[in-house]
């Protein structure tokens, strides 16, 4: 195959938001007929780069060339008309419309009397067949099919629009192994037809299974572009995390206590805790001073379990014993009353109260606990601010600043302070280090370790298996909304142990093995450069 020109070329892209350099001199080249993965930890700038390409964000400097000519798109629709389509994780389709309408709207077949529905649905059917979805009835409402199928419908829509570039933003987060394989089959087919696919993901195994080349970002900076087959896993991880890999690794070694003193009672114990549609009944116990990690792929039910324990969601089943007493935890109010605290993974939507000050955010849970009639005095508030803003090293430390003006990492620390101020005995942390720079990450991880040493129980939820292994004494493994096992941490336990456990569980044994990279096949494709 002759060497081809890149269909998309982004050079020296920089974007700055108030207080944050989201992208700094980032490069990206996409060639037709390849699957190109954009890699990086959370907060590395992957989403921002995509939005820069499609014109949702304006770039401060740098240039974008599409099919050889310079382009500045004005938004998703504009990019789409130029052949660049994006399918987001949340599948941005209208589920009150039919499958066919979602595929064809904007490209419907019209006759003398308006839209010809028969022909339009036939065209939709054709497009679906092209992706191997010939069994889907275009006339059924989109809401009646699974999320995985909806995603494929979104891809069909992109193909109807004759897209030359298909951007898939974290498409596999909510899919099970079969569905992921189905998606990959479709991706390979499209790639062979000459479409350039930009695949954004942080699942290492999937990246090695599907991509031809990858671009690595870290903290908004461009780290490198490589052929997948040229880059080993540990090299890739090092690129993504940076040279502080060793620093983080060293934190783990203290946490591997195994034996529990005999006769010690768990602080929190739940049997058959579950909620229809989010997690099947689970048994879980947490001892005082223990760090329990919840591990599993995205969509396995980790966050859901954490929320049930706190009462953020109402459990359908389960018996909970706290401090020896049988209790019901049905709401955050109840959770706080039983000395449990929960730090959400979605700090923007469920964590910070943006227009309020740092101080007001910090004292919020304590105040809620005391009730409306007993406001914290100015002195009490000052004491709390002084203690936690200093302890957690929040910068800038001015308590009267609106919290929305702080960086993500500092917001996370203020939120942590909010929960710590309630003096919980069980602290559940859901993705506490997500989207945070390395320095803040280490600070928070240290704080977690210290809290546990002081006697607080911690449940630590993270999608980064390495982090879970580093920090936890015991690891509860979840998969597809079920608990599949518990691992007691020790020197020979690694992230792979968890991965193997997930892979070998249940009937879907083919799960993980399918994601081994096939170097021979990749070489045979003759990918350029």
């Amino acid at each position, binding site marked *: 195959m002759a060497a081809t020109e890149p269909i998309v070329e982004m050079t020296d892209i920089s974007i700055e938001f108030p207080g944050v350099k989201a992208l700094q001199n980032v490069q990206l080249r996409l060639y037709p007929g390849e699957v190109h993965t954009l890699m990086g930890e959370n907060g590395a700038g992957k989403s921002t780069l995509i939005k820069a390409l499609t014109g949702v964000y304006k770039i401060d400097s740098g240039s974008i060339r599409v099919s050889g000519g310079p382009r500045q798109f004005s938004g998703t629709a504009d990019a789409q008309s130029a052949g660049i389509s*994006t399918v987001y994780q949340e599948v941005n389709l209208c*589920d*009150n*419309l039919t499958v066919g309408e979602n595929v064809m709207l904007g490209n419907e077949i019209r006759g003398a009397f308006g839209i010809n529905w028969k022909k339009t649905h036939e065209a939709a059917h054709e497009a679906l067949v092209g992706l191997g*979805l010939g069994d889907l009835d275009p006339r059924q409402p989109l809401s009646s099919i699974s999320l995985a199928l909806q995603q494929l419908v979104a891809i069909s829509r992109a193909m109807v629009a004759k897209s030359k570039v298909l951007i898939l933003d974290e498409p596999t987060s909510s899919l099970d192994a079969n569905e992921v394989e189905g998606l990959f089959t479709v991706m390979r087919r499209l790639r062979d037809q000459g479409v350039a696919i930009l695949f954004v993901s942080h699942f290492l195994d999937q990246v090695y299974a599907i991509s031809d080349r990858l671009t690595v970002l870290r903290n908004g900076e461009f780290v490198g572009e490589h052929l997948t087959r040229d880059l080993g896993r540990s090299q890739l991880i090092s690129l993504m995390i940076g040279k502080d890999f060793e620093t983080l690794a060293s934190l783990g070694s203290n946490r591997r206590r195994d034996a529990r003193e005999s006769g010690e009672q768990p602080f929190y114990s739940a049997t058959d805790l579950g909620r229809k549609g989010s997690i099947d009944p689970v048994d879980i116990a947490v001892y005082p001073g223990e760090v329990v990690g919840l591990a599993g792929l995205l969509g396995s039910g980790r966050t859901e379990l954490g929320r049930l324990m706190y009462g953020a969601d109402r459990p359908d089943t389960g018996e909970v014993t706290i401090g020896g007493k049988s209790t019901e935890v049905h709401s955050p109010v109840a959770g706080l009353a039983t000395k449990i605290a929960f730090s959400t993974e979605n700090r923007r939507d469920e964590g910070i109260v943006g227009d309020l000050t740092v101080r007001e955010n910090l004292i919020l849970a304590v105040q809620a606990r005391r009730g409306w009639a007993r406001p914290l005095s100015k002195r009490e508030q000052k004491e709390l601010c002084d203690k936690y803003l200093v302890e957690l090293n929040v910068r800038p430390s001015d308590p009267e600043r609106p919290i929305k003006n702080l960086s993500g990492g500092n917001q996370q620390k203020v939120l942590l302070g909010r929960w710590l101020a309630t003096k919980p005995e069980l602290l559940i942390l859901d993705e506490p280090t997500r989207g945070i720079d390395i320095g803040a990450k280490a600070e928070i991880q240290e704080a977690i370790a210290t809290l546990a040493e002081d006697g607080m129980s911690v449940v630590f939820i993270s999608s980064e298996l390495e982090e879970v292994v580093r920090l936890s004494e015991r690891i509860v493994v979840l998969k597809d909304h079920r608990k599949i096992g518990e691992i007691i941490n020790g020197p020979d336990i690694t992230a792979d142990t968890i991965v193997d456990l997930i892979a070998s569980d249940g009937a879907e044994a083919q799960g993980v093995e399918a994601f081994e990279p096939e170097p021979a096949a990749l070489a045979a494709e003759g990918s350029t450069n």
Partner: protein
Amino acid sequence: MTSVIERPSAPQSPHTPSLASRLKPNLETLPTLAAIVIFVGMIIYGEIAYGRILQFSTLSNLFINNAYLIILAVGLTFVILTGGVDLSVGAIIAISSLVGVMLANAGWNPFVVIVLMILIGSAFGAASGILIQYFNVQPFIATLAMMFLARGLASMLSTTPERLADESPIRTLSTEIKVIDGPKINDLVTTPNVIIAAVVVIVAFYVLHKTRFGRTVYAIGGSEQSATLMGLPVVRTKLAIYIISGTLAGLAAVVYTSKLGIAQNITGVGWELDAIAAVIIGGTLLTGGAGFVLGSVIGALVLGLMNVLITRDGSIPPEATTIITGAILLVFVLLQRLVVSRKRKT
């Protein structure tokens, strides 16, 4: 390369739509079917309780008297389908009819007057649309402001009833046309106004189900963000629906004034609520995304019939009708909430 994806353990087999998914479209049409059932039920009840309901003259009058409400309800259907609301339609009728009557009496060409009345509605609708779409003002505030603006302007024009000249050609829109000559005065009659209303309904149905614009309206109601990301012309469409609502309010003013012959600044107080009630009763979700314009027609007829039954009954004071309308609207809104929350659970 394989051409069929095998899904041995996929939870939903794509081969045959499961029973649940086949029933689901009907869950959307259910509220409208319920409205039809209620309407028929009211007719039967009225016939049994008061008599002389199920006959040509009563049904004719039902359509003639409510033609304006049907037109308002159609306009409001477009708006509510996107999850918005238009509180200004009643006030638009006031100002439009006042301007129309005064100009007609001053000797202006009646066709020009009619067109002007309609355009006044369009202008208010456009103002609402611009506020909502370009300045991110919430629909109820923007249209509430337009309502006060229109009503204020109407009051500045005149606070006393203005009577349309008897010989004005505009009144011909309300001349009765006998369709079926029944015994004595029991005839099936219609008026050009009713025909106008019918045309509006047919055109609206066509637009909503056979044009990209109409499907975009539904898409916006489903998820405005998704519709934008799908590349649909969301901004233009949202602006257009408020213009449509205003224009139809202007048309309703023509229809109403031609029949009554009087325009006043207090005309139309509360009619926006009647229109919203008609749309909700007819099965359109207040939150948008689902509903049928034919349902809104049924809803308007249900309200009209309710008035007839109350008048026939005679024992309910006229002041209570607003409470009854409010209660009915509340019941339907609660039912919608129940249906939506149940749908979310499945």
